[in-house]
């Protein structure tokens, strides 16, 4: 029987695990979170179940079905709180047979002492680590009360915590609507949702070839559901407007919004001030590329993992599914996961899935066309706007260093300014720093903020213990 290791238990990883099992493989499914479902199906822990999950989550029944399968099958080992901190591709990893990579994993609550260390290999690996929020900086975004939309949604979905009494949601992309819905469900009064893209841009992304959009009917229905939700609650959804500043004494008390031109530059004279105690911002998603890069997978010019129609990466035995192959939402993740899982286990992918995948790829392209970040946003920055929050590097210092050194390469600029060197290792600011300094990551595969050989922090003591051979085990 073949073995498949699936990294990430969001929609793509869950679908991959079940599909691989259905094709006859022994499966190990792991996730760094304490439950299954990933960010999309984040929910209350099992000790505190809620009957409201089904109303809070789209496709909750799909999640329950997948979770039931992976939890109830002896052929699927499920590891939660399992953090992959390194992918090895050295000769040592190959000796066990199977693909030329091994995952080094720490199991246990993050930051805790004495996490269990494991080294996992398998005949095939499916990478489905997902994406994290991309948030563009703006003056005041460091104030308490400003949340990435993903964090706000995680609090609302996972903890039922309202981020504030009165909030605005701003940024770009279809994610704004579910975030606003999560907030209102948690009891926050959402007084506005601001989409940066203007109507013509949105139309360019969403209108052409509507028949293709129908093939991803789930997503259409989901968006229609959000729209109905907002109409019912009378939440204004404004196009071509952004939060360009947050103000307050020690925490957010008000935000300034402004109309944007087609390039996302604020139009002077259109500013409006709104009193709120929370702001949730999302400008899209950044794929988590450290694991595929560490595994040696080729990355495309659009900075997603390159896969073929079978979700195969450039590395033999390594498959990729979900947001690391393109930001396409839950339907794309599910179908890609099914294909990857089937193929990783040596099976054939159903033709219907292959057709559906073409449609979801179309959807990802539409999202990028309609909501992709435009360069004009940088004009709402000020010299003292902090760009890298971990190391507190302001925009002005970054620009001054780039000018003084005449440097465009990211590595040097990071080391001269410390931007991106902090605890988040440029997960939050990397793409922004690249954009602000004119760095061109396409110039060199290594001059990118996506590369993190150490994929997660590890205590020095835990690392030192590996100097003696670990309990080598295979998935």
């Amino acid at each position, binding site marked *: 029987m073949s073995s498949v290791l699936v990294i990430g238990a969001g929609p793509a990883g869950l679908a991959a695990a079940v599909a691989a099992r259905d094709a006859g493989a022994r499966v190990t499914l792991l996730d760094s979170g304490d439950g299954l479902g990933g960010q999309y199906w984040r929910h209350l822990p099992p000790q505190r179940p809620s009957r409201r999950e089904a109303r809070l989550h789209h496709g909750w029944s799909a999640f329950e079905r997948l979770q039931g399968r992976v939890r109830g099958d002896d052929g699927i080992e499920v590891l939660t709180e399992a953090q992959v901190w390194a992918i090895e591709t050295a000769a040592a990893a190959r000796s066990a047979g199977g693909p030329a990579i091994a995952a080094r994993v720490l199991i246990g609550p993050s930051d805790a002492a004495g996490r269990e260390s494991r080294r996992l290999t398998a005949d095939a690996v499916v990478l489905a680590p997902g994406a994290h929020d991309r948030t563009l900086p703006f003056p005041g975004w460091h104030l308490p009360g400003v949340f990435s939309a993903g964090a706000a949604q995680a609090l609302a979905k996972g903890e039922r915590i309202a981020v504030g009494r009165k909030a605005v949601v701003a940024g770009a992309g279809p994610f704004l609507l579910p975030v606003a819905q999560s907030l209102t469900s948690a009891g926050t009064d959402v007084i506005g949702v601001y989409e940066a893209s203007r109507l013509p841009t949105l139309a360019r992304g969403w209108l052409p070839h509507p028949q293709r959009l129908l093939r991803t009917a789930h997503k259409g229905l989901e968006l229609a559901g959000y729209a109905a939700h907002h109409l019912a609650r009378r939440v204004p959804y404004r196009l071509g407007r952004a939060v360009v500043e947050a103000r307050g004494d020690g925490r957010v008390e008000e935000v300034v919004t402004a109309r944007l031109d087609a390039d996302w530059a604020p139009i002077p004279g259109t500013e409006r001030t709104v009193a709120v105690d929370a702001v949730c911002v999302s400008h899209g998603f950044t794929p988590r590329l450290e694991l595929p890069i560490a595994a040696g997978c080729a990355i495309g010019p659009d900075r997603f993992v390159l896969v073929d129609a079978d979700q195969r990466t450039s590395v033999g035995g390594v498959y990729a599914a979900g947001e690391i192959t393109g930001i396409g939402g839950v339907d794309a993740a599910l179908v890609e996961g099914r294909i990857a899982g089937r193929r990783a286990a040596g099976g054939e992918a159903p033709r219907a899935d292959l057709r559906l995948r073409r449609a979801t790829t179309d959807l990802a392209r539409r999202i990028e066309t309609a909501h992709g970040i435009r360069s004009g946003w940088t004009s709402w920055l000020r010299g003292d706007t902090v760009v890298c929050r971990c190391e507190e590097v302001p925009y002005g210092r970054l620009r001054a260093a780039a000018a003084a050194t005449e440097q465009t390469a990211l590595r*040097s600029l990071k080391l001269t300014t410390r931007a991106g060197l902090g605890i988040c290792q440029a997960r939050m600011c990397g793409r922004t720093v690249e954009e602000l300094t004119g760095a061109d990551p396409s110039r*060199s595969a290594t001059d990118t903020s996506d590369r993190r050989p150490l994929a997660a922090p590890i205590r020095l003591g835990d690392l030192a213990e590996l100097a003696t051979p670990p309990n080598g085990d295979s998935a």
Partner: protein
Amino acid sequence: MRADVVVIGAGIIGAACARALAREGRRVVVVDRGAPASATTARGEGNLLVSDKAPGPELDLALEAAAQWPLLAAELAAELGDAFPPIEYERKGGIVVALTEAGAGPLRAFARSQAAAGVEARDLTAAEALALEPDLNPALTAAVHYPQDAQVQPVIAAEALLASARRAGARVLTDAAVVGAFRDATGRVTGVRTDSTRIDADAVVVAAGPWSGAVAAALGADVPVRPRRGTVLVTARMRQRVFHKVYDGDYFGATQSADAALQTSSVVESTPGGTVLIGSSRQQIGFDDRLDVAVLAQVAQKALRLFPFLETVPVIRSYGGFRPYMPDHLPVVGEDHRHPGLWYATGHEGAGIGLAGVTGALLSAQLTGAEPALGSVIDPGPFQLSRPSLAPHLEVP
């Protein structure tokens, strides 16, 4: 394009050479196949050390460098002004520690030999060592304090040297790979061809670090530089608890060994950014840059011997780089005796950051015939490619 000197490589060595030559009035063009200060320069710790060097020509160079760095740092700061980030030069001193009975005697003997060669080296009692480094493992068996050891932020230092070179007239061409040499009828090197242009010059300086061998080959010559990989761990920011560069006594053995297998010894220090840097391993595995957990684990284990409190500290990053390794452990700074017009400034292994300034001065003095602008004159003899210890390693002696 016409220049007096083409410098190949915009790392810290190339930058220092370009600066020294430009300040002597030479028209300098620096060519790099990528971006400045982004390869070996960006992958080390920024060590300016005398403590790890045995008496001999490299120690003489390091002592001169230790004397020059404060002057160089002041010059650069005055020239480049507040708009330029500070190079973080700090003469923080080093403490070498032995943790075994067997290691204590050789460490003290080594320090005595260095002291005889002019190094400031002072034996510390355990109590003195713990007064300087309160969190050091109290089980130490010997400790030596080297106040001349210093630290610099290597990328900022290289960028500063390069900016200073530009102000003296040097041009910097990035993303331009050198693919061949031009020579006159006598065989003298008279310029280089890049993938996009031709540069005529009176002299060509190879300062391409571990890639110097490949560059020399493209120019029709050979230099026995090989890559040696080093790996460094970086912790999360924390309250400062390490105050010097602290090494275990094995460090000397690792730098001086030709054994290709993995060698690790600990170098632990704090940075102005609040992180702790932990090095360092040395491996001859070609240009293989893949992460190897066994190497990281060994580096971590040795660091914990020095500073047990680090056990609970999270490591947030590891970086590795290739150092230019010479078979006889001495850099090459001088003209190729077989190829007139072709010069080298390379092969410093892990000491290139510290030796950059003196290397630039030493190269410039030989190439221009001028007295070095800073410090005293170093005998260039031991650093020539024609030295006997390199003869077995040259394709054409």
